[in-house]
């Protein structure tokens, strides 16, 4: 039984019924990101040089492309969820809020795709 008035239901007041999913995925992506972030930070800071050969060699070596792609995808996912909450909290008005949410989603997907493509391109160029 719902205690919500029919008008309120028609106006979509109340919950969207998917808040727990958002909360949980934010925590799941955070747990996955924790070891990946440490790995990336330590690996990048200990690169002997930032010249082209060293960097592309490191990106393409062993399992690095897999871990890098995973890091980019999960970080983008986690970032999208976080930025979504920030937009929802600070941007007001239906049009402004919706446009910002949509733009954030599109940009996150676009940059994640660009990053993964770059990693694959470097990795595959190195292995013939």
């Amino acid at each position, binding site marked *: 039984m719902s205690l919500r008035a029919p008008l309120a239901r028609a106006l979509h007041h109340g919950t969207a019924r998917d808040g727990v999913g958002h909360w949980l995925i934010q925590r799941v992506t955070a747990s996955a990101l924790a070891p990946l972030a440490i790995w990336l930070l330590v690996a990048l*800071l200990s690169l002997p040089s930032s010249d082209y050969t060293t960097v592309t060699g490191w990106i393409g070596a062993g399992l690095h492309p897999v871990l890098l792609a995973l890091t980019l995808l999960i970080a983008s996912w986690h970032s999208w969820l976080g*930025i979504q909450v920030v937009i929802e909290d600070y941007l007001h008005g239906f049009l402004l809020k919706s446009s910002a949410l949509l733009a954030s989603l599109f940009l996150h997907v676009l940059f994640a795709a660009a990053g993964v493509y770059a990693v694959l391109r470097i990795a595959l160029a190195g292995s013939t």
Partner: protein
Amino acid sequence: MAERPLSPHITVYRWAYTMTLSILHRISGVALALALLGLIAWLVSASLGADAYAALLPLLTGTGGKLLVALAVAALIYHFCNGLRHLAWDLGYGYERADARRSAVLVIVVTLIGALLCLYFIFRPGAGAA
């Protein structure tokens, strides 16, 4: 959308350290979203070939670029440590006032030490030389 009333919030409360840590978590998160964009830009520039990479590298290895990297690393360490704190809370641990205060101090100390170490790594002589 109908204008709905909003309860008074932030401004009606006395300051507590928890507020600072909370807003820092959000600020460092937004900063990390931008840092992710920087990381992707760096990867894309490397995928465009040696010439494009060499042309864009000074942006990263100049003083401004190094400062931005240092800021991003500091944000990462803070967000990481405070994020672990949040995950512990989500599992039901660390809610006692003394525990929460201790973990807050730990997060700040680890962030400062980690950020200083990374600053040294990033700015040490010969670091990031092309």
